[in-house]
């Protein structure tokens, strides 16, 4: 029988134990992803198809026809693919926390994880990491399709700068992601597609943030609205950095990065507070678990 000393010893394993739980969650998510083989194959095929569609759309546009795109020193195909790739990772930040909460609840994983110290946070961390991993796989597929089928050349002279922009983009949106996740409990948003933050911000991004076309083609007032979105700044900065046009300290880039930092610094504490309040409320009401 386990004595109270053994319990204390077990608790001392703390962070190491938590990391092993995160790792296990990741592994389980992978098993879950590949569990239904036909579905897994279809998902992979869809990723390839989506990448091919964007490259083909790029071929349809005459380089001279998109003068706003030309200012980035890239063809429309590369423009749209870079936008989609970055937006994929940024939108993962926006949706992954709510998604992790949903799967923990509906797949009854919280029933098990809640019974262990740090279990819920380990589950959420593992699930969110797995979502990033899937986004990463998608971006790799975009690159593979680009090189293999459309003969594009990849030349990223300042990869570290691109990575810094990516990290800042993720930082700027994490608060909103956590805020969205908290609605599971605070607003009872327990179904897929009910995350209101994802609704509002995600809807605006496709139109305003320059993922598919330069914001310069939008009416002035919409451009103004688009400037509030961190994605607009992150994607623009990433495109400029990708082809080596701008370093971190270049004038336009600096403003974009500063916006990302400020936006993240303001929204992250709000998101964390809302998330903690949501967890507390769920535990008070017992709405983290379904069966036990």
């Amino acid at each position, binding site marked *: 029988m386990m*004595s*109270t000393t053994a319990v204390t010893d077990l608790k001392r394993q703390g962070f190491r134990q938590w990391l*092993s739980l995160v790792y296990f969650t990741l592994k389980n998510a992978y098993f879950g992803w590949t569990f239904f083989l036909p579905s897994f194959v279809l998902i992979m095929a869809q990723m390839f198809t989506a990448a091919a569609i964007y490259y083909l759309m790029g071929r349809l546009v005459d380089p001279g026809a998109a003068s706003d795109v030309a200012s980035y020193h890239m063809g429309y195909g590369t423009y749209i693919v870079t936008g989609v790739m970055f937006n994929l990772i940024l939108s993962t930040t926006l949706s992954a926390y709510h998604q992790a909460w949903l799967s923990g609840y509906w797949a009854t994983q919280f029933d098990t994880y809640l019974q262990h110290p740090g279990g819920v946070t380990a589950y959420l961390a593992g699930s969110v990491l797995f979502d990033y991993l899937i986004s990463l796989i998608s971006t790799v597929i975009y690159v593979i399709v680009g090189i293999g089928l459309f003969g594009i050349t990849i030349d990223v002279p300042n990869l570290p700068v691109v990575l810094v922009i990516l990290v800042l983009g993720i930082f700027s949106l994490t608060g909103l992601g956590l805020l969205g996740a908290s609605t599971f409990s605070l*607003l009872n948003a327990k179904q897929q597609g009910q995350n209101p933050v994802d609704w509002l911000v995600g809807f605006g991004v496709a139109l305003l943030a320059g993922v598919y076309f330069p914001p310069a083609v939008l009416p002035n007032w919409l451009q103004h609205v688009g400037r509030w979105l961190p994605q607009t700044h992150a994607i623009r900065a990433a495109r400029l950095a990708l082809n080596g046009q701008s370093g971190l300290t270049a004038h336009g880039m600096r403003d974009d990065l500063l916006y990302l930092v400020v936006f993240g610094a303001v929204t992250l504490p709000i998101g964390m507070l809302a998330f903690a309040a949501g967890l507390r409320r769920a535990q008070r009401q017992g709405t983290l*678990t379904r069966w036990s």
Partner: protein
Amino acid sequence: MAVNAATPDPERFAVEVYGVRKRFISREGLPLGWGFGDAHWIISSLIKYRQERQWKNAVDGVDLTVRRGELLGLLGPNGAGKTTFLRCLATLLRLDEGSAFVNGYDVVRQPDEVKLSMNLIGSGQWSAFDWGLTVRQNLHFFGTLYGIAKAERNRRIDETLEWLGLTGRAKDKPPTLSAGERQKMLLAKAFMVRTPVFFLDEPTVGLDPDGAHQVREFITRELIGSGTSGILTTHRMDEAEDLCARVAIMDHGRVVAIGTPLELKKTVGERSILEIRARRVPRDALQTLRTLPGIRTAVVAPAGEEGLEESVRLHCEDLNGTAGRVADSLASAGIAVSSIETTQPTLEDVFIALTNKRIAQ
């Protein structure tokens, strides 16, 4: 949150509960099917927000202790608050009032220690298994959760699978297992981890008689036999009586009686019990029985799973002539009775005497 200043005595008690209260807000949202699509939850939330809060006490001032090495039975009908109570002790729910200690740890202030001290095994909780993992991988997962080293984990898994007769299913995934085998997987978790305290929430529900017998055998041999302490919730009187040294009876969130089965039966006092078996006893006939002289209570249990007969238990002050009057009354109502027998009080009779209803209701 009001928490009293109770001091735990972990040397004597595995579980101590003082004045625990857990309440929920009861509010009705928008009925499903009103056709608002994705906007349904927003409108529903607004409606709930505007409603007046109505609180319902799911656990209402419970006081009890579980001694070291003791398995306490918690008996009560559906909705009595048994599962909510266990979830409070397992830190899955926050207490609203009172204080509780598991293995000497405060469930509010030391939730991590409580989690590591206990194992909650719920009926139907097998849905919490990872269905993409094999039986063996799931057990590895449980072992990892409790920080058991890999070599030791493998040893315990082999031992557990063999004991529960699941060795041949080690590479299978949960969807391919029977309900009984899944329930065994839950017990395998308990077998592997061996925490000092167990909470078993209706562990035999949904199992066939053989499966239920195996589970009871496991509880007797591996948990009670090893000096482990815990709480077992059940609807089944025989199970509580067989496995538990003491039984607490719960109704509407309150513990209405606690003691050994013998002590509890004595509380039925001078009442004698008549049991009637009939194909169907209409409610008006039941009402008539209640008005007969010498009868204090008459409660019916609907036809059970076998669906054959209803059983009516009559609590009588005096048996003299009562059986005859009952038989006459039923005959005049045209009810064909299979048997009328006097029986010894059971734990169910204790419950009937306390609440005027049957646990099975």
